[in-house]
């Protein structure tokens, strides 16, 4: 297991280095941020001063070399826009997204597994068709659209929930609900498919021959086996969410990393972009490790 983690860490570091090189050079291609930071009528001199101050006049190779040296010292540089350490900016935003993604994925997993299992048990039945259709509709509706409609209904018309923002537990409900829909539809389908094939396997027949009741057959005997393909998808979805629940964070005014990243991209705040990517990539790496760990916990046949 240790050797496995080591091997995974090495391959992740390779990916991360590749990622940094790509992001560094590609983001430099998106243009000079000077114009974005100074008023439109700023003079040529003050533009020059700005470039000098942020090292934008150096050759791109020198910039890269400086950056690599800084990174080696774990110094991600200062945000151009905020004049504060980029890492600090990122670490302020990241916990929000982490928590948002975590809660959402817990709920998604729970409901998708529950409903998907029940749908699979009576595959082709009314409940199955109903959930399939609705999950498909839900997951093909644009999320910003759903978000606004939800606000109009639940916050403005019914006044049950606050429109947006942070502060209380009520503020989390709408964003989580909107984020919930798409991964739920997807994971539901995977659970259903996986469950259908597991329920037809031989050991389920054994359990029935033993006299095991229906509920434990589904949730004890079948589910653990059916979870293997499911957790892969859960991992992918959680990773996608960590990389940015941009739309939801934007609409609900959530100070998460997705919004930070899109803002930084639009503002060409390179240091923040790079720091954010490093942090999320690290988080995704850890999450993938956890997924692998979950595999070994679920299935004793898998050993690393």
């Amino acid at each position, binding site marked *: 297991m240790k050797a496995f983690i080591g091997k995974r860490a090495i*391959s*992740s570091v*390779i*990916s*991360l280095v*590749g*990622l940094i090189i*790509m*992001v560094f050079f*590609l*983001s430099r*291609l*998106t*243009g000079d941020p000077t114009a974005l930071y100074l008023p439109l009528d700023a003079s040529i001199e003050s533009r020059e001063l700005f470039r000098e101050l942020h090292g934008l006049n150096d050759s791109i190779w020198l910039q890269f070399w400086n950056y690599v040296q800084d990174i080696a010292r774990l110094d991600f540089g200062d945000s151009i826009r905020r004049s504060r350490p980029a890492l600090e900016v990122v670490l302020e935003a990241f916990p929000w997204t982490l928590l948002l993604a975590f809660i959402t994925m817990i709920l998604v997993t729970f409901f998708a597994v529950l409903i998907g299992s029940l749908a699979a048990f009576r595959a082709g039945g009314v409940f199955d068709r109903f959930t399939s*259709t609705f999950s*498909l*509709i839900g*997951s*093909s*509706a*644009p*999320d*910003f*659209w759903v978000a*606004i*409609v939800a606000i*109009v209904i639940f916050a403005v018309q019914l006044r049950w929930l606050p429109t947006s923002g942070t502060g209380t537990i009520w503020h989390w409900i709408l964003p989580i609900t909107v984020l919930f829909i798409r991964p739920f539809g*997807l994971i539901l389908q995977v659970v259903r498919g996986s469950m259908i094939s597991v329920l037809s396997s031989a050991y389920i027949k054994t359990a029935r021959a033993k006299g095991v009741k229906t509920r434990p057959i589904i949730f004890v005997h079948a589910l653990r086996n059916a979870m293997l393909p499911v957790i892969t998808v859960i991992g992918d979805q959680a*990773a996608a969410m960590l*990389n*940015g629940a*941009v*739309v939801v964070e*934007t609409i609900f005014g959530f100070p998460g990393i997705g919004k930070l*990243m*899109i803002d930084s*991209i*639009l503002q060409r705040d390179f240091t923040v*972009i790079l720091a954010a*990517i490093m942090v*999320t*990539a690290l988080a*995704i790496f850890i999450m993938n490790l956890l997924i692998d760990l979950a595999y070994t916990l679920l299935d004793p046949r898998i050993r690393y």
Partner: protein
Amino acid sequence: MPEIAEPRPLLVQIYRMLMADKFALCGVIFLIILAVSAIFGPIFLEDAATRPNLRGRNAPPLSMENGWVNFLGTDSVGRSMLARILVASRNTLQISFISVFVALSIGCALGLIAGYSTPRTSNLILRGADIIMSFPSLLLAVIVLYMLEPSIFNLVLVLAITRVPVYLRTTRAEVLEVRERMFVQAAVVMGASKRRIILRHILPMVIPTLITIATLDFAFVMLAESSLSFLGIGIQPPDITWGLMVAQGRPYLVQAWWLAFWPGLAIILTTMSLNLLSIWMRTALDPVQRWRLEIGRKTND
């Protein structure tokens, strides 16, 4: 010695199997209508779709008062929603179809290579996929769309690149499984080349799974494109896509819901049609399952 008969023509087979699955048939009919409007819509409706009429703006839908063209209402500058949806179907379908197709082709090709070559090559390809997966797709979109132009081609490029890893990983996983199957070994024993094994034996087993993913990806790509428009970096007017229409209609949700509703509905219906079609296709492509569709044929005969 009795001669072996020629098999039935492919198109006839497809037609009969489609008739057996009414859900899939509905999906196909919808998609055909869509394809026709994508091809001919812009020719006939370009004007109605782009000509503003500020005096007839935000006309409500489901009324024939403003002529059949405006049956679905008009948008914020008085253009027919119906015409716009039909005209936009060309760009939308073009973007999603090409993106998905390109992603599928590249991902599948790389996945086959990764699954059937040396661990070294395989690792290299997988690391590349990792990079793409942890590369925020928005950043990629911004880079490509700024560096180059925010054109349809570049949008396709972005959407395709971000979807490649999905196909790559699926294909590779399937290849690893299929290559151990007995019939592949049987082909090796007969002296089949790697190329033949990959193309004739492994690929046909992988394709149905990929097609299922692809149909779902269609929706994903349409929505991603919409989100890019929402964030202001997607397709730019005067080009129109459903995604852009939804994004543009969003501020009017309260006063004129139809601006965002119809294009959203178009996306949902297309997704569902494709989904039904993919379920049908999975069955039709699998000789073991195909009888389910051929039975219907017998009762019809």
